[in-house]
């Protein structure tokens, strides 16, 4: 998974979102060592100061813990991870509803379509 940065939004926000995604999808497993700011900045091709700001957001969200001596680790708190997953799910669902609204579907129709799709492609 590569970092993808778009033009119009602050870079640090996009970075922190994508790092958050990596954490909840287990690219960086719970309790594991988190890469350093410089490593991540080099990977994303961004300024270390910008990456630092993205990292501060992850720390504020409780997804990453900073240890004075051993660097950063991904949180092992299941509740934090679960609640972040729910937040992301809600965000995406909102985007979905907005897109469907633009296509002219009511919320009820949208929910119905989602349910049907979900049943047909049940895995």
């Amino acid at each position: 998974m590569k970092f993808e940065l778009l033009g119009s939004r602050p870079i640090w926000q996009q970075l922190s979102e994508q790092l958050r995604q990596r954490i909840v999808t287990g690219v960086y497993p719970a309790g594991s060592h988190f890469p350093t700011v410089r490593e991540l900045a080099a990977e994303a091709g961004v300024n270390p100061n910008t990456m630092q700001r993205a990292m501060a957001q992850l720390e504020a969200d409780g997804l990453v813990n900073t240890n004075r001596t051993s660097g950063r680790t991904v949180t092992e708190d299941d509740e934090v991870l679960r609640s972040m997953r729910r937040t992301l799910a809600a965000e995406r669902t909102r985007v979905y509803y907005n897109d469907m609204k633009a296509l002219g579907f009511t919320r009820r129709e949208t929910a119905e379509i989602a349910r049907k799709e979900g049943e047909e492609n049940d895995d």
Partner: protein
Amino acid sequence: MTTELVKCTALTRDFGPVKALQGVDLTLEPGKIVGLLGPNGSGKTTLLKILNGLLQPTSGQVLICGKTPGTESKSLISYLPDRGYFPDWMRVGDMVELFADFYADFDRVKAAEMCRALGLEDDLGIKTLSKGTREKMQLMLVMSRKARLYLLDEPIAGVDPAAREFIMQTILTNYNEEGTVLISTHLLSDIEQVLDEAVFLQQGKIVLHESVDSIRERTGESVDALFREMFRFQAF
């Protein structure tokens, strides 16, 4: 000890009737990567040359780490001019020797690493290098120093997009935390994401000095898009 690495106050520079800089006030802190952005002829190179001590301002003051540019500031500043100045008969290895000899802060290990990564062999004659490869070599030399201030005048203009990415990586991984990098360019989309701050220069005046993320937050567009908007030519 002041935390201001660069401080320009009411800086002007005339070339005969041409007013290249008209009252520039600019303060730069350490540890930043700053883009010096502006259309052709807006005064970018003039400003860099004054910071570097190659040109004297017509009026106003420049301080580098609290001192006026001179012999001492040259040891703090690593400068990449907007054109090559290497004699054709030299080889890449000769240039490394020359720099190592000349600058106490030159890091041979770093230079060797960069040469390897950039495919610059010691025995390559400068005469045989393409324009882009010369630029890469020049950048390698400049970034091998452990300077306080890196002044890079159009470091990516002549190289292909893949090499540009590599050069940006080179700058990112090789500048030191107390050092500040001032990069002049008009190829904004390529370097936007590595910048902390953007300084917009127009007709010798600073019209904007803001952090890149704050520009994006405020305007909802990229610095590149803002630049194009601000400096768009009127159709005729």
